[in-house]
């Protein structure tokens, strides 16, 4: 017993000394923490540039792996419901790309975290004091996403047939979890722009209010849509690369189709992206006028001219691709006359959108103009004009798509004249509404004018809904003028797809700079000041150089990763169903111009080329 008591005493003393040591050590730790520098310097590049480059790269990859599965699962569902193997193949191709980029995204995310912890310790400590509970949620979601995407990709064959619904559910789940990851990370970023849920000293009062700050939901919506656009453009660029390096006509046809679908997805989402961006801009203004003016009228105002040029290129490029694509559709010749007027609208819209409010002028030019604002062109520099032309450009792009869609089809419905009349009327009414509010906007106060943009957007969206609601039944069972000759599109169209991907990546970098730069010398706006040596907002030229280098690095990494992903296809059995052969894609049908179908035959739609699995019936010639 005595021995036991002695042992107990020893244990108690050990525990006591351990606690005493811990107790004495804690203040030491606290002092160490206090002595912890607010910043450390990243060698050569500097901390800000290092964080900027890695954050942008991480964002690019993350946007791709979150955006691509959204349309991949939709395509898989189409294939599942229609029992059409080619859609299943396409969905698998898209997920394969996602899968290849998944680990790089995670590694870049980890690297970004290390950079924050190592080089911005005080800032990171503050952000942790606000958002620590969400870190756990984020980690759990990421684990969940990883396992689900792995299962989705590797279980493609295993969960086919009668178990396909489980596989599709995995795809849907992957997207839900992916979107949840996005909104959690967005809460941290948006808190830095428009902090909420804290008291005067910056201490947390309400975690939910910190998450649900002014810009959180607009950025959630904006990024979700932008991710789809980005995923579509990157997938289309990948298809273009494969098209250009294809050695057989089958391969060209397959990747021509894939590029078309990728671009279709990107353009469809791109049409609504400006509206989401406009909402975000309004919320920034509503949160803080200074920040809003810095962004739109202050030193970042010229950034929007650069943005207008980039978006103008996206609009022109997307339409150009569709017009080039019409060449492979027999019967599309009757719509070629619409190209010059559509191009004219897009060109004038581009010019007006890119017109700066305050121009780069010499003293003589300023004298001739009677001020810094041009008395005529100055009217194009304000939002009334820009909102008007962007809506007209969206309508024009939609018209391009409608013409492409019906290029090889002639409706046999008795009400076709009425239907088309209503469609043209919808276009005309939408255009009139857009122009009316654009002009009227010059005669009302600012807030009323801003409210007009909602009516302009509604007019365009209503037109799109009405036209599609008529178009789908009107061309169901339509007479065909020939099958789409996939793979015969002009080679330059593929460079356009690559251009669109590069332009959109660059645009994302630019907008990331804008979103971050409007905080100026604040880590968390108005709460945590940036006292580092980098507490200056870089000039637009410097930012452009950084964005360009990051874009080049991104595409180099993407090319390498996709090349790695493609290694598995070489010289071995495929892990998935054999690649399909697409109509017009057979070598033997090369140059075939006699593909016109008999009168009265039902045409395949533009997004549903005839296709067989190579392992089944081989290539079918039309």
């Amino acid at each position: 017993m005595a021995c036991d008591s002695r042992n107990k005493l020893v244990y108690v003393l050990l525990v006591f000394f351990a606690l005493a040591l811990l107790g004495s050590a804690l203040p030491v730790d606290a002092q160490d923490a206090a002595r912890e520098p607010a910043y450390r310097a990243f060698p050569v590049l500097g901390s800000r540039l290092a964080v900027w480059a890695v954050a942008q790269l991480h964002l690019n990859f993350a946007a791709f792996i979150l955006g691509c599965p959204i349309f991949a699962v939709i395509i898989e569902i189409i294939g599942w419901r229609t029992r059409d193997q080619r859609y299943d193949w396409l969905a698998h191709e898209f997920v394969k790309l996602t899968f290849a980029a998944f680990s790089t995204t995670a590694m870049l995310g980890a690297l970004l975290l290390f950079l924050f912890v190592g080089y911005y310790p005080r800032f990171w400590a503050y952000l942790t004091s606000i958002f620590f509970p969400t870190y756990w949620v984020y980690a759990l979601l990421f684990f969940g996403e990883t396992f689900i995407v792995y299962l989705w990709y590797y279980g493609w064959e295993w969960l086919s047939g009668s178990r396909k619904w489980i596989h599709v559910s995995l795809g849907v789940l992957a997207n839900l979890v992916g979107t949840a990851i996005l909104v959690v990370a967005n809460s941290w970023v948006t808190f830095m722009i428009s902090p909420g849920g804290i008291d005067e000293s910056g201490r947390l009062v309400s975690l939910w209010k910190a998450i649900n700050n002014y810009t959180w939901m607009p950025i959630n919506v904006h990024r979700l849509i932008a991710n789809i656009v980005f995923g579509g453009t990157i997938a289309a660029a990948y298809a273009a690369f494969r098209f250009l390096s294809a050695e057989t006509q089958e391969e060209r046809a397959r990747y021509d189709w894939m590029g078309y679908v990728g671009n279709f997805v990107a353009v469809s989402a791109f049409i609504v992206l400006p509206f989401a961006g406009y909402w975000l801009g309004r919320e920034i203004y509503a949160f803080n006028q200074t920040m809003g003016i810095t962004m739109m009228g202050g030193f970042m105002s010229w950034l929007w001219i650069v943005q207008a040029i980039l978006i103008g290129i996206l609009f022109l490029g997307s339409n150009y691709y569709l017009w080039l694509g019409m060449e492979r559709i027999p019967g599309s010749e009757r719509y070629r006359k619409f190209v010059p007027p559509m191009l004219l609208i897009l060109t004038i819209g581009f010019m007006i959108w890119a017109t700066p409010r305050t121009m780069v002028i010499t003293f003589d030019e300023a004298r001739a103009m009677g001020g810094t604002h041009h008395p005529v062109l100055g009217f194009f520099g304000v939002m009334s004009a820009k909102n008007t032309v962007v809506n007209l450009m969206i309508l024009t792009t939609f018209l391009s798509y409608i013409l492409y869609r019906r290029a090889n089809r002639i409706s046999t419905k008795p009400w076709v004249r009425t239907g088309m009349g209503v469609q043209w009327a919808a276009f005309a009414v939408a255009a009139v509404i857009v122009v009316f509010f654009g002009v009227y906007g010059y005669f009302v106060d600012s807030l009323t004018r801003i409210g007009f943009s909602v009516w302009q957007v509604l007019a365009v969206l209503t037109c799109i809904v009405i036209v599609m609601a008529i178009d789908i039944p009107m061309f169901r069972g339509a007479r065909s003028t020939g099958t789409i000759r996939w793979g015969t599109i002009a080679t330059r169209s593929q460079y356009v797809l690559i251009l669109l991907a590069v332009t959109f990546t660059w645009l994302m970098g630019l907008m990331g700079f804008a979103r971050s730069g409007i905080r100026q010398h604040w880590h968390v706006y108005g709460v945590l000041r940036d006292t580092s040596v980098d507490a200056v907002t870089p000039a637009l030229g410097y930012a452009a150089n950084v964005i360009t280098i990051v874009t080049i690095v991104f595409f180099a990494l993407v090319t390498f990763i996709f090349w790695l992903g493609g290694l598995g296809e070489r010289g071995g059995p495929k892990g998935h169903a054999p690649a399909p052969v697409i109509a017009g894609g057979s070598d033997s049908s090369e140059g075939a111009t006699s593909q016109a179908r008999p009168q009265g035959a039902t045409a395949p739609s533009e997004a549903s080329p005839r296709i067989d699995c190579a392992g089944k019936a081989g290539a079918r010639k039309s």
Partner: protein
Amino acid sequence: MSFLRSRFVQAALILVLSAVILRFGIRPPAPWSVFTLYMAVVFLAVLIFVSSDSDSWRGFIRPIRSTLVDPDQRVLRSALVVVIPLLLGYYAYTQAAAKPQAPAELRAVHPAPPDTIQFRGKQINISGAENPLRKDQASRQKHVAAGAALYIRNCVYCHGDNLDGQGHFARGFNPPPANFQDPGTIAMLQEAYLFWRIAKGGPGLPRESTPWNSVMPSWEDRLTEEQIWQVIMYLYDATGQQPRRWETAH
């Protein structure tokens, strides 16, 4: 007129006509920076126009190819080898040669205002502030009249009696004084923004986008707080513009 059917000729005509219209059809002339931007867009559009289908593209490049490789085009080819470098050289010279005027400047539209300012030792909120004189509607005309008198006494020399930035001294300044009649100036701003600009003038402009080169004086030493609000009321009343309201979104 069969040569007009050539895509190459059509493209060249579109470019030339666009240049003529944009250079001489807009009065006063568009600044060179805007003209070059427009022409770049037109050039891009023309390239799309000629290449949006294969027949058109072949038609466009046929004369170019012919000029470059056909033996019977040797004279034209030789002439182009001389003329094109000369034109490029002349363009480079016009861009690089020193001119007796300051180079073109890129300016921000509106500097971002601070959230608060110190006015004669008193802190005034700029963010969210309204013109306090507008609460008293009965005295509105009195304040506008007082603002008009202040404007005539202090501001008209630069901003002009029509409030269009064409005052007596205006031609001596670069950048010229603000034109309040322009819907892109005070109509886009809250009254608090104007208060800040009048009170602090050119010296109080933020460091961002410097140099501002503004000759606008700082009026806080000469005008009282109420007088500045009165001038602001007059500016909106005389131009018929409405001040921008604060947004209450979210």
